């Protein structure tokens, strides 16, 4: 029996879903041979509420989303959080630093009264999450790895170490040596240090590692010329929801 897979989205740009099946054609065909996709708003009009695996993108930012997510959780045997918003709250949580009314006013202006909003949160603040496919956008190869692990009933081997490991493996020159600053030392790898390899720096989209030495990281950022406010801003972009940025 092929497992039935459904995609869902909450507050997000839906980019992770767009990317999710951006595989090479052979891989895609092989994947479709291994699972049945029964619900995927972005690519098909059929819908089914009978599914085994729910792949969920987006953060929870409205009261009404809580019940919807709980229903999905109830139906799905396995729930996979897809992308930064779903895994760690992501960019959505930037608004948490404002009073909710002000956030509404900034976004909707005089129409603010028609909308409701609550502080943004990742999926696991509402329901238990079984697997995390991190990143902004999430890496389709990693989603594939998780799906294969589920099919094989094994634990997916997703790196728990910081970006520095993959950055060194890629043969990069350290961002700090190039006169910029980087969150790589405390952020989860798995992205292959893609931003740094492309000449930028780590923004922190995969979230903090399990035991981040944020004190040391802050000290280093200070040493390389960042003010406390700048450091907080840097952490806030993706990691507002965690304690660090507070």
């Amino acid at each position, binding site marked *: 029996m092929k497992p039935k897979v459904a995609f869902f989205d909450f507050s997000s740009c839906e980019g992770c879903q767009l990317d999710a099946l951006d595989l090479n054609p052979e891989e895609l065909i092989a994947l479709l041979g291994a699972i049945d996709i029964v619900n995927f708003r972005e690519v098909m009009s059929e819908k089914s509420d009978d599914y085994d695996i729910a792949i969920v993108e987006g953060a929870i930012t409205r009261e009404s989303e809580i019940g919807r997510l709980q229903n999905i959780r109830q139906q799905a045997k396995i729930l996979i959080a897809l992308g930064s918003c779903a895994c760690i709250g992501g960019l959505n949580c930037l608004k948490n630093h404002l009073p909710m009314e002000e956030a509404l006013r900034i976004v909707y202006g005089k129409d603010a009264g028609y909308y409701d909003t609550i502080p943004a949160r990742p999926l696991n603040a509402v329901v238990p999450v079984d697997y995390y496919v991190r990143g902004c956008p999430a890496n389709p190869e990693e989603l594939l790895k998780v799906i294969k692990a589920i099919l094989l009933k094994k634990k997916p081997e997703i790196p728990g170490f*910081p970006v520095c*490991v993959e950055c060194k493996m890629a043969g990069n*020159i350290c961002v700090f040596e190039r006169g910029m600053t980087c969150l790589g030392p405390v952020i989860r790898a798995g992205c292959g240090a893609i931003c740094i390899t492309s000449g930028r720096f780590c923004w922190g989209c995969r979230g903090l*590692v399990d035991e981040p030495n944020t004190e040391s990281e802050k000290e*280093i950022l200070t040493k390389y010329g960042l003010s406390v406010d700048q450091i907080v801003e840097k952490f806030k972009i993706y990691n507002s929801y965690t304690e660090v940025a507070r």
Partner: protein
Amino acid sequence: MPYRRSILIVDDQQIVRDSLSDWFKQAGYPVTTASTAEEALEILEKHDFGIVIADIRLPGETGLSILKEVRVKRPWIKSIVITAYPSPESAALARKLGAIEYLAKPVSPDDLEKLVSEALSSTSEATVSTSIYRITTPETRRINQSFSLNSADIRAIVEGLLQEMEVIGVKTKQGKFVFDRIKSFEELCLDYDVTVLPPTRYLRPAKEALLKYQSGETPVVEPVMDTTPRAIIGIHPYDLKAIELLDEVFITSNPDPNYIARRNSTILIGVDCLYPSKHCFAPSMGTHIVESGFDLLLTDIGSSIVATVGSAKGAALLTRYTHAPLASGEEIARQKAVREEAWEEAILKHGLFLHIPKEKLPKLLEENYDNPYWETRSEKCLSCGSCVMVCPTCYCFDVQDEADLTLKSGQRVRSWDGCVLVDFATVATGENFRHDKASRLRHRIYRKGKYLLERYGKMGCVGCGRCAEACLAEIASPLEAFNAIAESDALKKQMIAREIKTRSELYLPQFAELIGIRELTAREKVFEFKLPEDRPLGHKPGQFVEVMIPPIGEAPISVSSSPTRGNTFQLAVRNVGSVTHAMHNLEPGAKVGIRGPFGNGFPLERLKGKDILFIAGGIGLFPLRSLIQYTLDCREEFGRIIILFGSRSPSERLFTDELAEWSKRTDIEFLETVDRADQEWKGNVGVITTLIPHIQITPRKTISVVVGPPIMYRFVIVELKKRDLADDNIIMSLERRMRCGVGKCGHCQINGVYVCQDGPVFTYAQLLTLREAV
């Protein structure tokens, strides 16, 4: 590796050539034929083979001359000799020249095919592929010789290599230097300080496939190997030393086929480091200058480039692409001077050097495992892994299976991993065996300065300084760690020396006041002492002191009381020698010299939570009493307490009041016996071993602590072994002549062990390794 299966058939008879050739072609082997040895040798200059099948008698040179050449130039080729004129002499010669088979004609092609297939499949990993590069060792170019090159020669070599193989060279990247694939001579940069990653990444890449597999009814597992011919140009001496260590790790013990395949197909061209980086401390590690470990080593001496030959491959490069003459004596002297000047200058400029000889590192680290330095040093550690990722001698890896979507096939890949990463030592149950930063940082430094050296005989750190440069928290440099530990060690030793000085030497006692005397039997008394200012003795149960009564002398006496019984201490003494005799004549208020406490004492931590079976014979109770009291005072920390005590006769029973108390208590089990009863004695009679069958013990949970005369040990151990007690769970305290108490005089030594320092408490397991002990 197509050549591995290919066969060269050399025979002057066309019919033989054709029939064998057809046969093997049909069996799927690529076949080449030659009719003379000369023709074969010419073919062998250009092409590689797995097997050569050669006839001996040929027009011109014999087939054996092919074997001779093959052995020198392509030692991996296996050869089979066939001849219509077999003789013991030619057979012996063929064997000597490496032939794996010597067959008399006519040869059955079927048999021959079997031989070939066996020979090819037995190709060991070690000889898997070496370079397909043409190796010719010219008479005039030998290993260790140096030649004088100019820049055009270097260009010729590099461009020649570019034609033939993948060339890795040092080039610039964003203001730094890296080893990377080069496509032209112009990209190459040989006057660099240090590269971001070491060249070892081409011998053990960040990620590589080890196996391909297919599961199912007949599972298939195939090795995956990279035998791409490759030259690495511009390796500094410290990195060559690192490769030597990797060779030791991956080739000498449990040969690693993937490493060997790469290593064998790689040409290493070193270059002397004339501009050491500011973090480099190679001279302290003895890795700044190398005499071997390269195929070719280049030194830019200004007027010319001296190339030292390290292997036949290196010699061949020079022959093939240059007409370089031997370097002059002057040039060789200049080569030496240029190297040394560069490093001297670097040491002066950067001030980086090890403050102790590197040979002392293992011992230094051994003695500083618990140094608080590791904790403080690691506070800033990000556990980011940068230090191990850039290290040329770090080689730890992770292995993962990557399945295809069929879920039936896939590959097993290995990728770099490192001991400073949080999850490195985590097992499936979630237990992390190196869970704190400090122990991870220490482990890494210990690998660098101790573990690898002890295991492989080569320094685990080559002093390249890459980790120091990569570490944002600035805590990774092994040199800084080594020096800090050396400094703190020296301070510690100074303090010990100072303390000894202020305590006025090792052999001076402190004076304790005798505050109580109690007669135990006609021969035994117990004395209670108090140190000045009510200081506690600071002893552990099972330790002893040296008691000095001038001018009589000094004697070792075990402490009979537990440290839990206040600041005084008791010594129970049998009147048996001069010092003990003098003690027996002491009056309260007397001052007695005390040195110590000495010895290891009983292993309290090991005993906690266990059932303790005490077995004391006679005055063995004196030392054991300190531990019995301790366990009774901390009763809740121990399981069952069982005490067996034996005396020779009722009149020789010791501490009778305490024996009575023990027998009354319900939380201990106390059994007593005497060897010979008198009229009043109503208890057990018999030697102490007769008590052992009366008790029930759980061997797994029980530790027995036995003290008594030597003869008693022998019989008690036999009984305890009958009750399934492990050797490690039988603990004894030994009596020896402990003259000095500080492990110097030598009287108490058992084989290599000083009882006064390493004992007097030993497990039976330890004693079994000491032949003199029991």
